[in-house]
């Protein structure tokens, strides 16, 4: 009986509250190079999420004792704007954002060729301007494009999205309502050839559901990868064909 009720509240004729299919992503918009001061940057919209990422570096490490002799260190700072959520969030880092910063950094670090830049740091800053479930995956997607935009050598891109469970049905890229009242949420990040670099889960999955959800999330990641690629090609293919005119003398 319960199943039946849940199905009524989260699905209408097999479609979700925002009329998506269970395995459909929310609309995505990606734009690279949106900030003038940063070495690389990216703005992404994934459904109701609006996230901006900037990359600075490789640059000198401060404080100095953090530097590594053989490789660059990577720092990742996930931060939410106080107006990004329903109830105003107190500005500054909290326990949640520390954890997200850590796992997101570890999602990206495997593909960054840090050994090219010993004793330096690559700083990734992610600002969530509007939140609607899935901010960490949106942040990772933006950060990956921003790293490429900054010209940081990488083995590959990283793409991320979540799969979840609501009303006993597996869904891709849960939105706020599904996340709040859902039975499970599982953010995943991976390289285009399927190496998983982030995997978190909360809620309850059976073994079968888990493997299906993972498959679903990976399919979502592949779709996102194509969009990230398209965005970068869109920006840089154009530059290549432009004649090189300006040489700034005074810098």
């Amino acid at each position, binding site marked *: 009986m319960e199943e039946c009720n849940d199905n009524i509240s989260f699905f209408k004729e097999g479609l979700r509250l925002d009329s998506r299919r269970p395995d459909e992503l929310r609309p995505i918009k990606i734009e690279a190079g949106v*900030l*003038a*001061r940063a070495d690389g940057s990216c703005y992404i919209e994934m459904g109701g999420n609006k996230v901006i990422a*900037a990359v600075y570096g490789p640059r000198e490490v401060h404080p100095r004792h953090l530097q590594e002799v053989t490789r660059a260190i990577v720092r990742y700072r996930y931060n939410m*704007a106080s*107006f990004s959520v329903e109830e105003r969030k107190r500005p500054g880092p909290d326990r949640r954002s520390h954890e997200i910063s850590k796992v997101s950094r570890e999602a990206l670090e495997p593909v960054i060729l840090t050994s090219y830049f010993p004793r330096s740091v690559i700083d990734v800053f992610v*600002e969530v*301007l509007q*939140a609607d479930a899935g901010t960490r995956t949106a942040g990772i997607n933006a950060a990956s494009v921003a790293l490429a935009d900054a010209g940081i050598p990488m083995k590959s891109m990283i793409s991320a999205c979540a799969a979840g469970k609501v009303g006993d049905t597996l869904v891709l890229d849960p939105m706020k309502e599904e996340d709040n009242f859902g039975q499970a949420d599982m953010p995943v990040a991976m390289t285009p050839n399927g190496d998983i670099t982030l995997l978190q889960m909360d809620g309850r999955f059976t073994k079968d559901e888990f493997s299906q959800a993972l498959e679903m999330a990976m399919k979502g990641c592949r779709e996102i990868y194509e969009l990230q690629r398209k965005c970068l090609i869109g920006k840089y293919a154009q530059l290549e064909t432009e004649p090189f005119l300006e040489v700034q003398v005074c810098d």
Partner: protein
Amino acid sequence: MTNVISEIRKDYIYNLILKGERADGRTFDEYRDISIQTNLISKAEGSALVKIGSSQVLAGIKMQPGEPYPDAPNRGVIITNAELVPLASPTFEPGPPTEVGIELARVVDRGVRESKAVNLETLCLVPGKQVWIIFIDVHILDNCGNILDASSLGAIAALLTTKVPASKFGLGEDYPLPVNDIPIATTAIEFGDVVMFDPDVDEESIANTRLTVITSVNGSICGMQKSGTGTLRTEQICRIVDVACEKAKEIREKFLEV
């Protein structure tokens, strides 16, 4: 927190100034292009993205009922906060607000407060017990100079689009926040005998002194802030105020387009 600028760049800018020019071809009183986009953040009660040239600032308004200050039991509360997040500039660092950030927030707050753009008495719900608290949060996204003017513009533009979320708290229907004034901050820097408006980041970093003038709709001045280690002469101040009033009028016209 200091921007490093090469000696040769400094020299170049200085020599241009002697010729009466600026690196990007503007005149000394000229602003870069200003654009204002509102209501970008649907989770916020009001929001505005302001661009002055490449500088970008996002302001968001959140409102919630809360207790008034004991010395003003019938008045609403405005709390202004600025986040100089490290995404915006290689010289911004994470951590608690710096002097620069606090000054910025306070000058933005002064403009809104002193112009009486928001009538705080109308924000009283139960005298002495419950009033509306307005949080003005300014997020600097890209610091290419003159983020103070951009922040101030963002704050007032966001307030103008603010809907009081009364229904969320069971206090009746939502209604637009009444705004009575449009305070505009205009900032100039000083170099020897020259005064320059809307400094970019390089100009800011070689100037000793900066003066911000905030004017309201009727042309009166409702706030000023001098910062930096240099000095200003009275005739320079008068000139800045004169130009500031004119510029503010031009910029205020932007709001009619929004």
